[in-house]
């Protein structure tokens, strides 16, 4: 058994165990523990990607998944501030047992079929010329900007739309039509301020007149 194989079984077993811990009690009981075990699973998967010579994808896995997506998940879980009874899940039901049996069947099928089909599969030797940069940032980046340029641009549009959509969806109110009274706009506030200013101006002018009047009254009195 080579070092590569030993690493594969450790990382793969860790990924499966962490993913299963996400769903099963005791960790699966609370969403925040699920999220943390999922982060652990993503780190194991990043190691697997690096083992498959996909160095860039391994780094992206940690940056994007463990760094961005899961931070978003934990933020939302903490933001929702779920009451304890909302995190409780019902006990084992017939549907769950059926799902488990079906999943075991599918896994068994896949394992046998894939085992038969890929029995004599030989991996490309990366030491031979032409494969020196396999999985490097240079090679993947070059392919992204040449043969996959259009999908790459479309993905950027998708991310923009997703960002805008997320902002719209997460707004306080989705329906402005039903709102009885529109909130005071910037213009209204400005106008009110202006009005207040002119009022204080006239008051001030009145104040300057007042001493004159007082003097006049005093003069007439004499």
């Amino acid at each position, binding site marked *: 058994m*080579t070092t*590569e*194989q030993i690493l*594969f079984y450790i990382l*793969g077993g860790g990924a*499966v165990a962490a993913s*299963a811990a996400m*769903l099963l009690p005791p960790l*699966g009981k609370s*969403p925040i523990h*699920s*999220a943390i075990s*999922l982060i652990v699973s993503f780190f194991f*998967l990043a190691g*697997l990607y690096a*083992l498959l*010579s*996909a160095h*860039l*994808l391994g780094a*992206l896995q940690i940056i*994007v*998944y463990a760094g961005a*997506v899961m931070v978003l*998940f934990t933020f*939302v879980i903490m933001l*929702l501030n*779920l009451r304890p009874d*909302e995190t409780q*899940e019902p006990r084992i039901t017939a*549907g*769950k047992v059926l*799902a488990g049996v079906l*999943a075991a069947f599918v896994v068994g099928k*896949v*394992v046998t079929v*894939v085992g038969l*089909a*890929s*029995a004599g*599969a030989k*991996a*490309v*030797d*990366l*030491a031979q010329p032409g494969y020196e940069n396999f*999985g490097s940032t240079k*090679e993947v980046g070059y*392919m*992204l900007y040449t043969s*996959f340029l259009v999908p790459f641009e479309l*993905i950027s549009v998708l*991310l923009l*739309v*997703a960002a805008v*959509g997320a902002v*719209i*969806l*997460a707004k*306080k109110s989705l329906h402005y039509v039903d709102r009885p009274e529109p909130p005071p706009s910037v213009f209204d506030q400005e106008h009110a301020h202006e009005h207040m200013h002119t009022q204080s101006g006239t008051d001030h002018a009145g104040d300057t007149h007042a001493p004159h009047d007082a003097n006049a009254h005093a003069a007439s009195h004499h």
Partner: protein
Amino acid sequence: MTSIPLHHLLTLGALLFCIGFIGVLTRRNILILLMSIEVMLNAVNLTLLAFARYNGATEGQVLAFFIIAVAAAEAAVGLAMVLAMFRLKQDVHIDTMNLLKR
């Protein structure tokens, strides 16, 4: 020349996919559901990278890159929808999302 057999890699991918699938089918908390979908997408990525490694094809890695981008977009929109739903129902269980059933 990697010494990891291809069918071990594919079996691991299938296992992870099934774990995610069981999560989607059995759990009722929508946050756990979204996390299970992430596990499924990662299983697909692992399979793609295994084939890319065995064929020496960088295209598989580019496709996995796109899947990561789509997963990030999906998580952002999905979590925004969870927030909107929580504001509406004060709950994150998909059993309460039955407006079209009534």
